[in-house]
């Protein structure tokens, strides 16, 4: 269009900037999650994730070491280092104080005067001098604020995978997803071939029915199918959820594959038939290999859908914690028991979305093609 009307630099700038803003707006929530998943839980609580590359200021309290009291000329003195005492991470003291009511009133290097003529000096590197004219009976408290360097680590991931059973949920999700993705493809491919290339009475009616079934809310199937599963002895089990996902995925699978197969060149199929190929041979040797892009599109759809599903898993899998998939684990367990532990939540969420994101970015081409073929035009 530009080449016809001549470019308008101002408009191009506006376009560029608005798209940049939109992309940032779209990415910010996810980036926040990703950054938070690597941060130390104490740092998450005191500084926002967008400030995470900068040192975090936190308040601490330590007790001065009573064993180190020295008596010089009637003045009792304790010298030490606040970082050495408590095993606190070494940082830079940005403020300190000797009173609970005023924990950060003095600058490093200043002498703070406390009650009963006691004094306290803390230097930026943590060295302190505490003096008192009277004998020191209890270890005095030193309050200070320290700027800690940013703390990024895999600790949240380690914890969620080892002690919170997220690894188990990951395996469960994988176990649900793979058969539930592969099995419908084959069933649908045969049906799609019949609907695309075989002549029989009632064909149009069947296609119409499948288009109709595309939008049937699967909420309808939950109660009757669970009852049926219980009756025939499948109950709430992996077999049950594989069958359920297969059933729910079929309309889209058949619809996508039929739309694609119908577009294959008629000549190839007819000349194969003239040469004596049976329908079974035409299907397996010609149509199936040529339909690979459509098969891939559907496989990605079904994979994303089963991986991300919460509803079907809640209903068709047993509700004990050993068979929780990741979505159920997050929604029913972590959000409750770990509600305030943002680092853990973020790590859990990222583990559950990592695989779909990889699939998405590597196979985006097929996904887009499938979307375009799958929407009723």
């Amino acid at each position, binding site marked *: 269009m530009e080449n016809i009307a001549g470019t308008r630099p101002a408009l191009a700038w506006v376009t560029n900037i608005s798209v940049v803003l939109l992309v940032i707006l779209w990415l910010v929530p996810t980036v926040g*999650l990703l950054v938070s998943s690597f941060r130390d839980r104490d740092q998450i609580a005191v500084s926002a994730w967008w400030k995470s590359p900068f040192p975090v200021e936190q308040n601490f309290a330590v007790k001065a070491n009573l064993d180190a009291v020295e008596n010089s000329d009637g003045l009792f003195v304790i010298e030490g280092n606040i970082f050495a005492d408590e095993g606190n991470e070494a940082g830079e003291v940005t403020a300190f104080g000797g009173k609970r009511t005023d924990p950060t009133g003095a600058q490093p290097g200043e002498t703070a005067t406390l009650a009963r003529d006691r004094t306290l000096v803390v230097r930026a590197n943590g060295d302190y001098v505490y003096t008192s004219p009277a004998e020191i009976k209890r270890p005095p408290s030193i309050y200070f604020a320290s700027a800690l360097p940013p703390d990024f680590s895999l600790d949240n991931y380690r914890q969620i995978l080892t002690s919170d059973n997220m690894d188990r949920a990951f395996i469960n999700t994988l176990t649900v997803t793979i058969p539930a993705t592969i099995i419908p493809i084959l069933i649908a491919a*045969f049906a799609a071939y*019949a609907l695309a290339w075989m002549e029989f009475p009632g064909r149009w009616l069947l296609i119409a029915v499948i288009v109709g079934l595309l939008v049937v809310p699967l*909420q*309808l199937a939950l109660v009757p199918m669970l009852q049926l599963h219980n009756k025939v002895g499948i109950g709430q089990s992996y077999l049950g959820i594989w069958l359920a996902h297969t059933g729910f995925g079929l309309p889209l699978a058949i619809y996508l594959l039929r739309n694609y197969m119908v577009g294959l060149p008629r000549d190839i199929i007819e000349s194969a038939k003239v040469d004596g190929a049976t329908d079974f041979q035409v299907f397996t040797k010609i149509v199936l290999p040529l339909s690979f892009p459509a098969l891939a599109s559907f496989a990605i759809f079904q994979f994303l859908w089963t991986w991300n599903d919460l509803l079907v898993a809640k209903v068709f899998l047993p509700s004990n914690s050993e068979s929780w998939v990741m979505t159920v684990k997050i929604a029913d367990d972590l959000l409750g028991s770990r509600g305030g532990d943002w680092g853990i939540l973020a790590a859990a969420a990222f583990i*559950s979305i990592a695989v779909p994101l990889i699939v*998405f970015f590597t196979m985006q081409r097929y996904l887009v093609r499938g979307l375009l073929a799958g929407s009723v035009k």
Partner: protein
Amino acid sequence: MSPMMQGIITVVVGVGGCVGYFFLSNLILDKIIFPPKPGDKGRNINRAEMVRPWLFLFPALFALTLYLVYPVVGSFWRSLHDRSGDAFIGFDNYTTMFSDTAFQTAFFNNFMWVLVVPAGATFLGLLVAQLTDQLKWGNIAKSLIFMPMAISFVGASLIWRFVYANTPEIGIINALRDYVGLLPIDVLQIPFWNNFFLMVILIWIQTGFAMVILSAALRGIPEETVEAAIIDGANPFQVFFKIKVPQIMGTIVVVWTTITILVLKVFDIVYAMTGGNFETDILPSYMMNFMFRDDGRATAVAFVIMIIVLPVMVWNIRQARKEMQ
């Protein structure tokens, strides 16, 4: 047996079973039932050709009937029974439900979702499609905006919990409020408006879908129509709203209805964000309150959803038939 092994065996049995079924049933049809014997060779081949489509279709039709057609009837029938499923109570579940204020709230909320989410996602999708089509780095921008499509509704909810968190150290919204000196609030607890904060999540996810389809439609517009408009002196806004949008109206409707259907099915977001508290229930999440507790009530809600979807279903079928003829 570990579920993983069970899974592998199921894949092998399932795939092997399917291939075996199709191969053997075709073999039996050709060699045993209607063998092309000398004499009635032609007749038998024709008969076999009449049966074969149904061999190809049988597994799919069986699964579809069982998992999608039967439940429509089965759910309706179940919704006419009481909690235990033994006593037939007619439409009592429906009358109880309609007089339940929680249902009315859920229904009203769902109505707002249906109004706002498809409109928001379609509008933003169209905007992004139009803007990115003119950029060199448009494909990268598209792929990033499309990305939330891959994220589960639960994952997306968690992501947005961070944004909405009621402490300025975690939630961006409250950090902004803090910056201008306002006190932090929990946006998910503001009556009425909290629904819109939940809708934002689904719009965030679905904009990519709308964008991909509308972008393809925009590219399909004949260049001449746009050229003619520009030569006639139309400005970019006129070109977009008067030339391009009318030509892709069909696709816009498709995107709109697809997202509308989705809105009537998604219970995950409400479930993970508020659990339906603070008057944020929508029909699918309202239904889950009764799942496992009162199947009669649950199926009644499901059937109401089905009735709402019905017009779209009819419209889809008519479109598909028009396209095939």
